[in-house]
């Protein structure tokens, strides 16, 4: 990557820059004309100095007025051409800048993808992100100006100076007499500003790094109560930035002041020297006026030039400071990451390590002189003490860590020379904490099948043309022209022929890694769109009826309290009983209900408000009494109360303000009204939901259904509720709170019904669509590891490396997962890094690492006597 920004611009936009320079040079004579014609108009056309009428222009005779208009037309033309050319140059500059910015960003990201793995221990995302996003932004704007701007301004300046010299050499000298002083002083002042600029960038980076740490380590900050320490650190960091920035501001201001001051001095020279010359009769008043005007015009390009100079200094630092972060040692060769043009070549055969050693960046030898032959297929266990080299060996095999010396071959090929996409298509690796992308379960499973675009997306003619334009532009900026919207999933690599088969294959994989039940549970909590999947919705409705029929059996009666439009559901909250539907608009969420005017209007109308306020007061009194002696935020409270600690703290005041039977207004009214909304009669047993209240609520329910036109998906025994989960749609009611093991028993009934109606697969497919959250945060650690294993298995790798990937699972689950993976990768070479002191177990061979060396190699053929 180019070390200086100017070299970067010249290398990637030489032609465009040359065009810009040529156009700029071409615009200068026209600019000169725009300066010169007014003078001719004054002197020749209007004053008529040295003219005889009619005068001939290109053989056509002109009278004075005609001549005046001719010159005016010429002036208009010059202005138009000058303006048009400027506009065109600006457009070119803008496009050039944006293209180069795109290229720069792409190049930086490209380099991140090529960083050697150990380098990621030194850089944090919090540092890299602002560099690629915000820090390079001003660089982009500058790159268009890098060469053109000084040229334009210098050219303009030179034109004016030339014009002045043409008027009078002394005047010309006067105009430029102060420039040498400025040219000497300003760089000196700027140098200090540049140093400060470097410090500023570093200080800001420290802040982003620190913020990244605070966010990632927020649990520790909270648990150790070190918020004050962190805040003090931030105050310190920001203080330093403040000092640097303020000093830069002051120094820049001084440069500006100095410059303005010297510019203001110039007219003084004109008045004194020019005035003297006029008095002496060596200069006309008209020439002095023209010279003054020209000098005024000079201040603008001069100022621009100075700005450009300051900007250049600033941007150079930015560019260097950004790009130096992207030049680590041992980057992956760019050729290894070239996109595949054809399906990845088959890779198979024995894997051989010959004298492989790894030395980390601190000089520590992690593995030494490892020489081992692994067959093309088979099960190899690897064990040894933690840090003894087995983990690094696995990473070397997966080519995640390059050997410092020695050679690794797969079949006939040197591992170091295999294209990364080709390798990724045939090699599976699962580490101890695999990363899960923020997407659906399905997308994560398919991630390992996306080495190259397989099918271009279907586009109409207009779409095709738009895509062409995007690709051309991408190539101009040195970006990848591969189509992100194409279908990247290589079905043949997964061993299936169609997308339908693919889903079946994914479900099979889930079963192999013991993840089916988890995905099933996620599926039950998922939602479907009944408009798009009407058949599925109909089957779920049928399951609703079937489950209801089964739950009507004497031994199961009472487990679920179904939603009945005519009855109060004691296992649901008051809010759910009121709305009798699922909120779609946040205005109908339980916390917003008391502030919803449409709802309040109905509650007032049916006379429910006073009852709810009385109930609210009772809830407030009981809660205050029960939790009175507990400190705020006590775990018991957190666990059982349906109020927050802040809300509880407000209650005594609320009770004091609102007398019993009173009807408060405003915030107190909303507060009291919202208190009972979360009450579940069967669970909280506060005894405030009596018959009259229930009757009023039912009346309000009917009214609300008529009044609310949108924002709530109402419960309807005969239709699918798009806003509710599949489970809620099947159950169409609430599991009873007061019956032992009700949830488990109901879950069993649902599972059996779904199996019987063939819906289990459908629920699993909905589970595949589950969004796992950032870094898979909505899955448990065990689920993430299992998902990563399934992802590695999906491409049917010839070499599968499992590096302490399931240590976090419980023993029974570990056994099931290992069995499933072993069976799935029967034809492959499977290398499994096991806990220390592991037995050979189901493996053909056991490699034992100790202190970085391969200490033992037990195979089934030669049973070890260890």
């Amino acid at each position, binding site marked *: 990557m180019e070390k200086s920004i100017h070299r970067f611009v010249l290398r990637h936009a030489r032609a465009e820059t040359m065009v810009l320079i040529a156009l700029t040079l071409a615009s200068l004579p026209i600019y000169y004309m725009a300066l010169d014609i007014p003078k001719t108009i004054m002197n020749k056309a209007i004053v008529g100095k040295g003219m005889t009428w009619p005068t001939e222009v290109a053989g056509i005779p002109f009278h004075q007025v005609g001549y005046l208009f001719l010159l005016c037309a010429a002036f208009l033309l010059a202005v138009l051409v000058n303006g048009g050319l400027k506009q065109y140059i600006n457009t070119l500059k803008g496009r050039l800048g944006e293209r180069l910015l795109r290229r720069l960003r792409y190049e930086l990201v490209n380099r991140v993808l090529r960083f050697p793995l150990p380098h990621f221990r030194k850089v944090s995302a919090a540092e890299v992100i602002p560099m690629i996003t915000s820090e390079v932004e001003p660089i982009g704007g500058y790159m268009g100006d890098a060469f053109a701007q000084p040229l334009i301004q210098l050219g303009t300046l030179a034109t004016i100076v030339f014009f002045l010299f043409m008027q009078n050499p002394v005047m010309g000298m006067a105009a430029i007499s102060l420039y040498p002083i400025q040219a000497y002083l300003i760089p000196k002042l700027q140098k200090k500003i540049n140093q400060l600029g470097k410090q500023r960038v570093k200080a800001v980076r420290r802040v982003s790094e620190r913020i990244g740490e605070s966010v990632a380590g927020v649990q520790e900050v909270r648990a150790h109560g070190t918020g004050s320490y962190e805040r003090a650190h931030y105050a310190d960091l920001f203080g330093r930035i403040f000092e640097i920035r303020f000093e830069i501001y002051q120094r820049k201001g001084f440069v500006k002041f100095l410059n303005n001051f010297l510019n203001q001095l110039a007219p003084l020279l004109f008045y004194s020297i020019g005035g003297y010359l006029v008095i002496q009769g060596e200069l006309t008043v008209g020439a002095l006026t023209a010279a003054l005007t020209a000098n005024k015009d000079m201040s603008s390009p001069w100022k621009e030039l100075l700005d450009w100079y300051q900007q250049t200094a600033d941007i150079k630092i930015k560019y260097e400071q950004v790009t130096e972060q992207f030049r680590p040692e041992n980057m992956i060769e760019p050729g290894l990451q070239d996109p595949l043009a054809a399906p990845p070549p088959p890779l198979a055969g024995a894997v051989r390590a010959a004298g492989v050693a790894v030395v980390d960046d601190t000089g520590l030898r992690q593995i030494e002189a490892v020489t081992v032959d692994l067959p093309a297929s088979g099960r190899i266990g690897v064990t040894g003490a933690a840090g003894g080299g087995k983990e690094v060996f696995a990473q070397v095999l997966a080519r995640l860590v390059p050997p410092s010396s020695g050679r690794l071959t797969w079949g006939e090929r040197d591992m170091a020379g295999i294209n990364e996409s080709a390798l990724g298509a045939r090699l599976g690796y699962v580490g101890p904490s695999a990363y899960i992308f923020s997407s659906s379960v399905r997308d994560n499973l398919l991630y390992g099948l996306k080495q190259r675009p397989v099918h271009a997306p279907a586009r109409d003619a207009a779409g095709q043309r738009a895509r062409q334009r995007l690709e051309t532009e991408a190539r101009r900026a040195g970006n990848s022209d591969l189509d992100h919207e194409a279908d990247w999933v290589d079905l043949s690599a997964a061993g299936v022929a169609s997308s339908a088969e693919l889903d079946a294959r994914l479900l099979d994989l889930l079963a192999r890694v013991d993840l089916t039940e988890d995905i099933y549970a996620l599926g039950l909590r998922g939602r479907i769109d009944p408009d798009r999947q009407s058949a599925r919705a109909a089957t779920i409705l049928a399951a609703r009826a079937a489950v209801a029929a089964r739950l009507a059996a004497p*031994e199961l009666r*009472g487990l679920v309290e179904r939603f009945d439009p005519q009855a109060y559901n004691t296992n649901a909250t008051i809010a759910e009983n009121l709305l009798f539907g699922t909120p779609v608009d946040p205005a109908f969420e339980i916390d917003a209900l008391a502030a919803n005017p449409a709802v309040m209007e109905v509650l007032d109308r049916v006379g429910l408000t006073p009852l709810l306020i009385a109930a609210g007061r009772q809830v407030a009194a*009981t809660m205050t*009494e*029960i*939790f*009175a*002696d*507990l400190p705020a935020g*006590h*775990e*018991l409270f957190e*666990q*059982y109360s349906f109020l927050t600690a802040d809300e509880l703290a407000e209650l005594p005041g609320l009770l004091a303000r609102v007398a019993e039977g009173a009807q408060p207004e405003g915030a107190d009214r909303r507060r009291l009204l919202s208190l009972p909304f979360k009450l579940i009669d069967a669970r*909280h*047993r*506060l*005894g405030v939901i009596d018959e009259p209240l229930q009757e009023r609520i039912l009346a309000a329910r009917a009214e609300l259904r008529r009044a609310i036109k949108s924002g709530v998906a109402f419960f309807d025994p005969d239709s699918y509720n798009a806003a509710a989960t599949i489970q809620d749609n099947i159950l169409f009611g609430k599991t009873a*709170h*007061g*019956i*032992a093991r009700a949830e488990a028993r109901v879950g069993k009934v649902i599972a059996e019904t779904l199996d019987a109606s063939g819906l289990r697969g459908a629920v699993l497919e909905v589970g595949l669509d589950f969004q796992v959250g950032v870094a898979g945060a909505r899955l448990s650690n065990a689920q993430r590891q299992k998902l990563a294993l399934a992802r590695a298995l999906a491409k049917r790798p010839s070499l599968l490396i499992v590096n302490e990937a399931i240590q976090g699972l419980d023993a029974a689950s570990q056994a099931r997962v290992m069995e499933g993976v072993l069976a799935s990768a029967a034809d492959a070479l499977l290398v499994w890094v096991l806990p220390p002191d592991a037995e050979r177990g189901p493996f053909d061979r056991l490699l034992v690492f100790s202190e970085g060396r391969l200490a033992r190699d037990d195979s089934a053929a030669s049973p070890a006597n260890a």
Partner: protein
Amino acid sequence: MSLQEEAEILRRIPLFAKLEPAKLKLLAFTSRRLAFEAGQVLFNQGEFGDSAYIIVDGAAEVSIETPSGPIVVATVGRNAIIGEIAILCDVPRTATVTAKTALQALRIDKETFFRLVTEFPQMAVEIMRELAQRLEKSNQQLRAAVAARQG
């Protein structure tokens, strides 16, 4: 049945008799009211115990596994507290408890129980008193048994 009534029931249990009404309500609020059918098992001998039960209504049988099959050692009824040993000293359930009739119980889980005890020392004192009484009772039984043997 409301919190108020449950608090009344808790008051009749010696362990909680001396607690003030607000604490009893808190205990009731933080416990779960559960219905069991006749024959349904509350917990099995040998399981890890995570909660204690207070019988509000109905009766339950306490049985112990022996090589010759389960033997019913006691029948407990209203106001009895069962399963407290397992949550106090982290041992597996020492017996199986099965609902003999339809049963209503309050279930207090271990965490909650301990938090209540740590938060309200008078509860801890009451529990100590109750346990000491039980110890004294078993000592008496032991003495009586020893005397009967010697005599």
